C-alpha cells in the first residue's frame, strides 16, 4: 500500500517551475527525499502537507488529497527545517500547545505531550525554556511535537541541518527506532546524512525526479560509471591476482594490508566471481561491500546525467 502517491504533479510560481511533472509512489518505512538546494524538496513537502495546491496533477496522501483536508493533516506529523519556537516557553509547553492544535483537549494533550517527549528522550529537559536547548535538543523537541498526535506519516524537513555529528548520529538512531511505528519521509540536501537511515531514496533536482529506489537499484542505473567493491580479508594480494585476469575488472588496489578495492563496470558478475574465489581459496574474509556507494557520489552522477540529458534534449 502506498502512503504518498503523486501523479504528474507540477507546480509553478509565476513563471518559475517548482516541480515538473513528478510521478512517484512512496511506501512504508523511511524514505529519503534528496536533492540540492532549490531542487523542489520544500515544494514537494508543502504539497504533501497540503500547504500548497498543485498547479497540475493529482496527489494522494494516506489515500486522500491533502489540500484543505484537516483529516489528512491530523494524520501527518511535520517537523519543519527552521526553529519555529517562541524561545521563552518550555519544550513541554510547546509540544502540549501543538497537541492542542491537533484537536486534543487539555488533558489528552498533556498525556500525549509527555509520551511524545519520552519517545524522543527529552523528558529530563522538557521543563527548560527552548532557548536554552542545544540544536540536537531542539530537533528532538520538534520531532516530539510532530509525534504528539500519533501520526501515521512523519515528514521531516532537513532534520540534520546545523546538528553536530553526535546529534546527527543520535537523530538517525531515533528515526530508525521510530520507523517501526510510523512512516517517515525525510528530506536532506546532504546525501550522507540520510545514508545510514534508509536505502529508500527519492532524488529530485531542478523540479524533476532524478531517480527513485534503493541505493543498489540506483547504482544499477549507472551502467558505465565504475563501481568499487571493497573486500577486507587476510591476504588481499592473492585475491587480486585471481581477479586480474577478468575483463570486467578495470582496476585493483590494495590501500591497506587487509583491504582490496576492485573497480568494475559489471558489479553483479564480479560479486559472484569474488564469492566463488573466496570459497575455492578458503580465504578468511571479513567484509565485502560497495566502497563508493555513498549517496554523494551517486547523486552527483545522476544529477549530472539528468542535467546533461535535459540539456541535450533542449538542444
Amino acid at each position, binding site marked *: *500500500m*502506498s502512503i504518498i502517491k503523486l501523479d504528474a504533479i507540477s*507546480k509553478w*510560481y509565476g513563471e518559475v517551475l*517548482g516541480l515538473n511533472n513528478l510521478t*512517484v*509512489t*512512496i*511506501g*512504508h*518505512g*523511511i*524514505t529519503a527525499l534528496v536533492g540540492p538546494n532549490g531542487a523542489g524538496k*520544500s*515544494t514537494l*513537502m*508543502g504539497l504533501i*502537507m497540503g*500547504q*500548497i495546491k498543485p498547479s497540475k496533477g493529482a496527489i494522494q496522501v494516506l489515500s486522500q488529497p491533502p489540500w*484543505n483536508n*484537516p*483529516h489528512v*493533516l*491530523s*494524520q*501527518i506529523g*511535520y517537523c*519543519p527545517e*527552521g*526553529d*519555529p*519556537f*517562541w524561545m*521563552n*516557553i518550555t519544550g513541554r509547553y510547546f509540544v502540549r*500547545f*501543538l*497537541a*492542542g*492544535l*491537533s*484537536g486534543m*483537549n487539555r488533558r489528552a*494533550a498533556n498525556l500525549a505531550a509527555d509520551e511524545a517527549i519520552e519517545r524522543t528522550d527529552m523528558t529530563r529537559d522538557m521543563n527548560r525554556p527552548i532557548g536554552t536547548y542545544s540544536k540536537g535538543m531542539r530537533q528532538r523537541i520538534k520531532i516530539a*511535537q510532530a509525534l504528539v*498526535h*500519533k501520526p*501515521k506519516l512523519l*515528514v521531516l524537513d532537513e532534520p540534520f541541518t546545523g546538528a553536530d555529528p553526535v546529534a546527527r548520529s543520535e537523530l538517525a538512531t531515533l528515526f530508525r527506532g521510530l*520507523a*517501526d*511505528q*510510523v*512512516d517517515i519521509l525525510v528530506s536532506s540536501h546532504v546525501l550522507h546524512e540520510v545514508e545510514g537511515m534508509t536505502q*529508500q531514496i*527519492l532524488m529530485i533536482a531542478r523540479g524533476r525526479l532524478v531517480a*527513485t*529506489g*534503493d541505493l543498489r537499484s540506483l547504482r544499477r542505473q549507472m551502467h558505465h560509471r565504475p563501481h568499487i567493491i571493497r573486500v577486507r580479508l587476510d591476504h588481499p594480494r592473492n585475491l587480486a591476482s585471481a581477479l586480474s585476469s577478468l575483463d570486467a575488472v578495470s582496476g585493483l588496489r590494495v590501500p591497506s594490508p587487509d583491504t582490496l578495492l576492485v573497480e568494475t563496470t559489471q558489479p553483479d558478475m564480479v560479486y559472484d566471481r569474488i564469492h566463488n574465489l573466496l570459497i575455492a581459496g578458503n580465504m578468511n574474509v571479513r567484509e565485502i561491500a560497495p566502497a563508493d556507494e555513498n549517496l554523494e557520489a551517486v547523486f552527483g552522477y545522476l544529477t549530472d546525467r539528468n542535467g546533461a540529458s535535459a540539456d541535450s534534449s533542449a538542444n
Partner: protein
Amino acid sequence: MSQENHQYQRWPGRHKQPSPISGLMAIVVTGVRLQYHRRFIKLLLLAGPASVIGICIMLYVLSMLELLAGQPQARELYAFARTFLGVDLSAVSQLGELREVIWQSVFAFAIRIELFVVMIIVARIGPGLIANDIKSHALTIYFAHPINAKTYLMGKWLVAATFIASVTLLPNLLALILGSMVTSGLPSIGQTLALGLNIIIAALGVMLIGGMIMLALSSITSDSRYVTVGWLAVCLLPAMAQAIVLENIPTDRVTGWLGSISLMDNAVMLTEKLFNLREAWQQSGIPPKAFADALAHPIDPFYPAIVLGSVTLVASAFCYRRILTFAKSAASA
C-alpha cells in the same frame, strides 16, 4: 520504481476528525498565557478592577445624592459630581428621574477613559501576535496542523480581544451588576438590560476594531517594534490631525469626513450615540460639561461608522491575505 518493500508495523491507533474549536482554543489559551506572564501586562490589567471600583463609587455617590438631595450633607457629593461629570446636579429637584441618563453617562465616560488603556494594552500585547510567528517561521507549523488561516486569524484576534475585554467589557458589566447591588439600581430591569447591551456592543466594537487593526499591522513585518510604532501612529496621528482641524476651523463647520479623521474620536462619538447621551441630557436641560463637545451638535453616526467599519474590514482582509501569503511562502521556501 515504487518503494514498498519495507517490513513495516503500522500505527494501530485511530484518528478522529479533528475539532477546529480545540485548535482555536489552543491558540487563544496559549496566546493569553504567554502574554499574561509579562509583568507590565499584569499591571495594565489592574485597570479593569480600578474601573469597576471607580464606576461603583460614582454610582454609589449619585445614589446617595438622590437620598440626600437638598440636604447640607450633599454639598461635597455635588462637588464630586461636578468634578467628574461637569454637571451641577444641585439644580435638579427630582434626581431620580435622571438616574438612567446619569448611569449611561457614567459608563460612557468610563469607556472613554478605557479606550486609552486599550490603546496601551494593545500596543503591548498585539505587535508580536503575528509578527513573532512570522519571525520564527511558526506559520508553517501552525498550518501543518488541522487549522486554516481563518481559525488562526480568529484565534489571534481572540487573544487581543481577551485583553481588551478584560479592561472594557468585563469591568463595565461587573460594575453594572455591583452598582445595581450597592445602589437602588435603574428603575427597571429592562433599562438595566438595555444598558448592559449597550456596554456589550460598545466593547465588542472596540475589540473588533482595535484587534483587527493591530493584527493587520502585526502581519506587515516580523519586527514587532515597528508594529508598536505603527499602532501608536494609527491611534495618535489622526487624533492630532483632527485636533489641528478643530483648532483652525469653526466647530459648526467640522462635519462629515472632516470630523471623522480620528479613530479614537470616532469610537467615542459612536459610543455616545449608542448611549443616546445627547437626547437624554437635552431633555434634562442641564448638559454636563464632560460631554460638552459631543453634546454641542448632533452626532451623525454615518461618517464615524463608515470610517471605523471600512478600516476594520480592510484591516481584516489585508491581514487574512498576508497570513495566506506567508503560509504559502513558508511552505515553499
